């Protein structure tokens, strides 16, 4: 019996003696990042086969922080069903795939959400000809709804709480919803607001459609890593925070070199001119400089991928900085 126990002890030791993820990534020479198989604005391959998007930028920021080179990422495509097993098995180092932070995923599945890069929420899209400007005025409407999702439950709750009725038209995919809505078979399409914007952008005449201001659920989307490796979690967390702090401080990829001569102490700390904050993370002290230089700050990434000037045309709203009326807020860099 003692022998058996000692074997177990050795085995347990062998498993726990794994080098940390950060060391693994450094030794490997590139980061393995899980993304979607394609979601407009958040992750998609461009014509040359390079991945681009708002979630992809988080992966690139982490690569820039570790290697000083945002191209040292290999992307693994994951679906809603395969994303968690892929992360849990160690096939990828982190997941940046519009995943909602919930208690069960954070606790029960053994992952750690390191922050929120996009505050989403369920909304409604209707033809502007309907003349409704608030979702409570949708009594009796036919609603296109993806079956088996939390959006279905949220929808039922919302209509019941407001004492109005609706007729559900169950659909399976986004494409199907789009076709049904554009063909007039349903009056309302409800899903995450970012998805609604993507659908609206694909209409022949986007001005004929409006996304209502009502947001009926909380969907904080963010990157996540495996539970237990806190050092690695810190690296990903502060790569994301760096992008947000850089926007707060007005440091962008275009002025990052000049900012090294700034007289604001936090800018100097951020760019590694003062203090040894990179070393605390076991990165180089200019890791934040590399992120900002190569990927940009939060607003640059937002505007490039999903902002008002892109086909998606999503406004900052909740995702504006706390100083601009949003809830984007990163802990101080000190």
């Amino acid at each position, binding site marked *: 019996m003692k022998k058996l126990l000692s074997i177990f002890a050795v085995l347990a030791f*062998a*498993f726990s003696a*794994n080098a940390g993820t950060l060391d693994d990534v450094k030794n490997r020479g590139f980061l393995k990042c899980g993304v*979607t*198989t*394609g*979601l*407009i*604005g958040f*992750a*998609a*391959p*461009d*014509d040359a*086969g390079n991945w681009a998007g708002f979630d992809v930028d988080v992966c690139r920021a982490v690569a820039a922080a570790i290697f000083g080179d945002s191209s040292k990422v*290999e*992307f*693994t*495509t*994951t*679906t809603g*069903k*395969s*994303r968690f*097993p*892929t992360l849990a*098995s*160690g*096939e990828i180092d982190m997941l940046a795939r519009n995943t909602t932070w919930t208690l069960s995923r954070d606790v029960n599945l053994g992952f750690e959400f390191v922050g929120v890069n996009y505050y989403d929420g369920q909304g409604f899209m209707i033809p502007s000809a309907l003349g409704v400007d608030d979702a409570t005025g949708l009594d009796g409407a036919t609603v296109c709804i993806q079956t088996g999702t939390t959006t279905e439950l949220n929808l039922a709750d919302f209509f019941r709480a407001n004492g109005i009725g609706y007729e559900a038209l169950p659909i399976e995919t986004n*494409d199907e919803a789009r076709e049904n809505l554009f063909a007039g078979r349903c009056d309302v399409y409800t899903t995450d607001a970012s998805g609604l914007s*993507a659908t609206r*952008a*694909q209409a*022949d*005449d986007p001005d004929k459609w409006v996304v209502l201001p009502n947001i009926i659920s909380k969907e904080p989307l963010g990157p996540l890593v495996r539970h237990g490796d806190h050092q690695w979690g810190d690296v990903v967390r502060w790569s994301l925070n760096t992008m947000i702090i850089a926007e707060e401080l007005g440091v962008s990829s275009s002025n990052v070199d000049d900012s090294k001569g700034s007289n604001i102490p936090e800018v100097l700390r951020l760019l590694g001119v003062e203090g040894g904050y990179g070393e605390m993370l076991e990165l180089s002290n200019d890791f934040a400089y590399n992120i900002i230089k190569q990927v940009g700050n939060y607003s640059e990434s937002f505007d490039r991928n999903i902002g008002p000037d*892109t*086909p*998606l045309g999503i406004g900052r709203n909740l995702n504006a900085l706390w100083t601009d009326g949003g809830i984007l807020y990163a802990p101080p860099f000190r």
Partner: protein
Amino acid sequence: MENNSNFESRKPPVATTGILGWCRQHLFSNWVNSIVTLLVIYFLYQLIPWFLDWSVFSADFWTNYKGELIVDRTFCSRVADPEGDHGACWAIIIVRFYQFMYGFYPSEQVWRVNLTYFLLVVALLPLLIEKIPGRKHLIKFTIVFPIVAFILLYGGFGFQVIPTNKWGGLLVTLVLGVFGIAIAFPLGILLALGRRSQLPVISMFCTLFIEFIRGVPLITLLFFGMVMLPLFLPEGLNLDGLVRVLVAVTLFQAAYMAEVIRGGLQAIPRGQYEAAQSVGLSYWQMNRKIILPQAIRISIPSIVNTSIGLFKDTTLVIIIGLLDLLGIGRGALADATWMGLSNEVYVFVALVFFIFTFSMSRYSLYLEKKLKTGINMGAD
């Protein structure tokens, strides 16, 4: 009986020969058939010109209706000019053709994929053309082809390693289809023989295996390969994602193949076995020389049928995140540059699949004709 010569030989009535006769016999033999024929003609008349117009005559290829080169969706005639009468915008396929064919395979190494495609044709030649010179040697190549293909595509032996997450498009579809079918075929034969074996352990194992695999949908096996297989492997050993999927696809196909071939085996009369045994052939000799050639011959339509089924089922891998031909298409649609052109993408993907599956089905017809499978074995 000489009285035939009393009659002048007359031609059959006009209405039963020639085009007219054929039409009358096949299309208008009674009023129900006539109505169906007219309806079908009407629908084809509506559908074919419309489809040709959409896909060819008023479609954009490289340039739009103003003659500008199409670089994103806003240049497509039907997006730029929604009031006008414009058809498909094939530029999405043209611009992304490389991705549709090879995925993210590095372009300086892509000759390896092309060489593999070429060698695949060479490997298929001895199977397609019976009278090709040097067929015996070519067959040997066909047998080692999977190994050659693996080294060429993946790397090693002096070639740069291209990890499979860079593979995509038609390459992944073909790798899954061709490897799946090629490995499953011999495996299926062994399983079929095993299931009919008189050794209880072997027969029970084969039966269990076949029934288990056939009892679950392919998607379940894919999830098994993706999620559960890594749990059985020692820590640190990460079997490649594509390999895990390939294992699942092969096992699935092998089980179906085994049942198809077992059907063929059961059609062989007992006398064939007894005759083979009476001339002193061993079990393997008997199966190799007498039984299997006949059994496989009569199973050809079903073998091709399950193979076509598998080839199309490979699109299920998108659910576990591999970008096959369909997955690359959906990826293209998720790029803001091209979003909304789903009709073009799905029509193109369907066309590529049709080319492959239709060729497979024609090949099976050719084999059936060549081997005269319709004729009863005994009288052959």
